[in-house]
């Protein structure tokens, strides 16, 4: 028996349904533009501008709210793993550092770590740079804080720089970039032993990634200082070996010998310090062009730990930031005319 409406009626019904659904589908595909939402680029710029204005005016709470809004807007517009988040994230970190809202500050730093790890999965050099930037933030926090919180930030900073070193070690020919990072780890060790609380050091180093102390076995203060000395010495010797491979590098090697001498002086090993300074001085004396370098290294007092000698501006700025932490009376590198070298002159 044949159906009274037949297949043609079915086709007509389908067309009618599709025609009814099509406008709704097209509408769903098109981005909804509302007059007053911040998910549009122009509005995003406006939010960022107002946040900057709040910040300039010192209205940190208002700036925080505005930057959070901008941050969410960037995430929505550009995607959850887009690098456009990084500048806004930097502003949020700066605001929360100024507000001393440590839970927010740590939260954004953690987010920064997760985001950059995801973004630079296949780019170790980029990842190393992002890790360095996070380490800078931890160091800035360490300057403000005291006690175990300072210790924790210094340890986190050190760990991040180690991670940056590990990332750079995967890149062939990046050994020159390692030296300032290795020197930075050494100076962090010095500040950890002199300017931070050693209470809970072992716990913060090995038991947890968070700023809490977990009870258990811990290293004595003396042992921690000896270990820091050993690590710094090892790292400086590694820097020396890296530079020793390059030809005609006598001046650089003399510089590193001076840093090695400084390291001995910082840990109270005057005799070894003298030996390193003597080695550097003699190497420089054999070079007729080394007059200005001798002047730079030994003719004036230099506060220790000295900045890294490379021309890299970042290494110097980081050293300068760290140097402001030194509150316990800074040691200085002696001049050649000082009593420190008197014994040295007697030998000659």
């Amino acid at each position, binding site marked *: 028996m044949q159906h009274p409406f037949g297949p043609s009626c079915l086709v007509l019904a389908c067309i009618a349904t599709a025609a009814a659904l099509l406008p709704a589908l097209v509408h769903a595909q098109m981005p909804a533009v509302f007059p007053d939402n911040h998910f549009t680029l122009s509005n995003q710029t406006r939010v960022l501008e107002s946040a900057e204005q709040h910040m300039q005016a010192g209205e940190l709470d208002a700036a925080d709210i505005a930057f959070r809004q901008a941050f969410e807007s960037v995430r929505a517009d550009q995607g959850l793993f887009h690098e456009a988040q990084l500048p806004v994230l930097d502003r949020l970190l700066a605001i929360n550092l100024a507000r001393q809202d440590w839970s927010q500050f740590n939260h954004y730093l953690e987010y920064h770590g997760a985001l950059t790890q995801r973004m630079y999965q296949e780019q170790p050099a980029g990842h190393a740079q992002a890790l360095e930037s996070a380490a800078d933030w931890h160091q800035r926090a360490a300057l403000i804080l005291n006690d175990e919180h300072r210790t924790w930030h210094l340890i986190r900073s*050190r*760990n*991040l720089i*180690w*991670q940056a*070193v*590990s990332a750079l070690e995967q890149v062939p020919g990046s050994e020159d970039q390692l030296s300032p990072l290795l020197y930075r780890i050494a100076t962090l060790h010095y500040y950890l032993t002199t300017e931070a609380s050693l209470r809970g050091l*072992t716990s913060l*180093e*090995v*038991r*947890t*990634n968070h700023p809490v102390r977990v009870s*258990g*076995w811990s*290293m004595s203060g003396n*042992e921690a200082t000896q*270990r820091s000395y*050993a*690590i710094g010495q*090892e*790292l400086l010797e*590694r820097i020396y070996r890296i530079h020793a491979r390059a030809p005609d590098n006598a001046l650089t090697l003399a510089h590193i010998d001076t840093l090695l001498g400084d390291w001995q002086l910082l840990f109270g090993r005057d005799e070894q310090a003298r030996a390193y300074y003597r080695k550097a001085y003699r190497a420089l004396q054999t070079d007729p062009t080394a007059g200005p370098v001798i002047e730079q290294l030994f003719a004036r007092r230099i506060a220790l730990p000295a900045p890294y000698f490379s021309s890299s501006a970042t290494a110097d700025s980081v050293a300068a930031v760290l140097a402001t932490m030194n509150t316990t009376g800074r040691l200085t590198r002696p001049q050649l005319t000082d009593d420190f070298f008197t014994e040295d002159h007697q030998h000659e």
Partner: protein
Amino acid sequence: MSDTRFRAKDKATETRLTRRRFVPVLALLGLTGCVAPGEGNFIRPPTPAEVEQYNAMVQPEKRIVCRTEVPVGSNIPVRKCRLAVDIDETSNFHREQLRRALR
């Protein structure tokens, strides 16, 4: 004929020399067999900086602590590395045993 004999003689001498050459090689192989790499041989413990780099890369439960210890019955210090978690567990266990013994 004599030429053939000489050749045979040369061959025998050569074989003997080759054997003699092998003797020191075999002796050397035998000696090295005595110090074959086993547990403890040729394994350099990680330096303090290497330990720190490793610890920075792993989660807390995998972090290690290396210290120089003087084992019982010897005066020679040995560098030992252990998981920090293990150190805590052993120390808790010993503390518990001591408490039981003192009860």
